[in-house]
């Protein structure tokens, strides 16, 4: 039963987080793990959609979310946040992107800032699960297929039938 650390205030994340971090096997220990994640976060902020192994994506996701939420909370005049952005974004022009593009984009969001999808695994290939990690509101076409116009879906079939019935009734009324 430890006391919660009260020296820092953080916003609640809108994603589910694991109770413990993943070690992300590497020879340099925790520092190397953070370097891996910094590369991933930098790539995510740069490209807005990346495909990578599931574990690394899931780990990096929390860091990206917190980086953005802290940037929204404190703004670009807060020294500690700026230092954090400087550490996490290896390409320094992305610091400007974080504060000038992503913060205005996500200011009024009520959902998470990132999205993750399972991606297919190559066969035969490495066993690890693949995933796609993206920032919400990115300029690419959506990864989720729009099914609203699929005529074989049950609700569309029912809507079609209802429409036909309505038309039949109208015609019968006109015939009278």
């Amino acid at each position, binding site marked *: 039963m430890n006391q919660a650390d*009260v020296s820092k205030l953080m916003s*609640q994340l809108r994603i589910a987080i694991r*109770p413990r971090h993943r070690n992300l096997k590497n020879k340099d220990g925790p520092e190397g793990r953070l370097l891996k994640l910094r590369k991933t976060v930098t790539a995510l902020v740069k490209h807005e959609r990346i495909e990578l192994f599931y574990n690394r994506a899931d780990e990096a996701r*929390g860091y990206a979310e917190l980086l953005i939420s802290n940037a929204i909370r404190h703004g670009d005049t807060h020294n500690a946040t700026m230092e954090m952005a400087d550490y996490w974004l290896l390409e320094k022009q992305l610091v400007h992107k974080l504060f000038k593009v992503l913060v205005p984009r996500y200011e009024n969001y009520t959902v998470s800032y990132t999205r993750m999808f399972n991606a297919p695994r190559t066969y035969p290939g490495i066993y690890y699960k693949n995933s796609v990690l993206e920032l919400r509101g990115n300029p690419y076409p959506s990864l989720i297929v729009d099914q609203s116009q699929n005529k074989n879906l049950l609700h569309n079939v029912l809507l079609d039938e209802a429409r036909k019935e309505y038309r039949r009734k109208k015609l019968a009324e006109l015939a009278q």
Partner: protein
Amino acid sequence: MNVSTRFLINRLGKQCAFNRIVTYSTKSTEHAAANAVETEKEPKIKETTASTASEASIPIRKPVIPANYRFIYPEFLPDPKIEWRNPIREKLERMDMLDRRRQIDLPEFYVGSIMAVTSSDPHAEGKVSRFVGICIHRDRCGLRARFILRNVIDHQGIEVIYELYDPTIQKVEVLRLEKRLDDSLFYLRDALPEYSTFDENMEAEQLEEGAPVPVNDIKVVLRPRPWLERWERQNLRGVANIDQYLKDKHRQSARRVQKPWEKYDLMKQYRATIPEEEQNEIFAEVYAELHAQELQRKRNKRKRTFVKPKQLA
């Protein structure tokens, strides 16, 4: 955890009763009973209009929770370890804590404050013991919250661990309310005894109302090795002469075990904290009660300050 079901039922009953009062106005039903001539529908309409008007006129006010509550009452925040979270248990614990606080005045204190705790002790003379000391550590949360007091008595360092919500505690006084530079003062164990010696008959010092809690920036002097811990590895701010006892090998090993990347590990920090939204929820739940107790304490303090001096001619 000892939760009396009777108490729980009482509490729930009260809440339900309150709800009923809010939803149906008893006044208008009496009115309706008296005027039996009136049709059934009319009073109902009246009632609804009256209730809506009263709701509209009273703006819904949210309690403004002071930002420093998380420092004053850190034990109300649950353990951030996700596996151990249990919202219902936490809520029940908070209710029990408030219950205990209704019985006994548990004042605001910090690591570095000088306190006196009076507790029941079957072996002490008069079955009551009073211990004065400096709070060197605060840990655990909920009903298990505890703190350590340290003093030097008869050239012997004494530390007592008190649980804040222990029913055997009779009185907690803060003699000098202040903070130190570090979050825990375990290094006082290896400091010269004068830094943890406090007079047992010390008088409580009054702090001005509304003044911020002062930070005592005293730097303690350590005695030579051997020490209980490797203080050079802990980046202590409240120690004056640590360099005097360090050799190069100590400095090197201290440098080797430093983890400068940890301050950038956002998720680690997040997992060690309770997010702000959740904190607000928790403190909104207990604010009314704690605030009332604070006001009561202030009133008592004012009373105490106007005591007539007991000087005889």
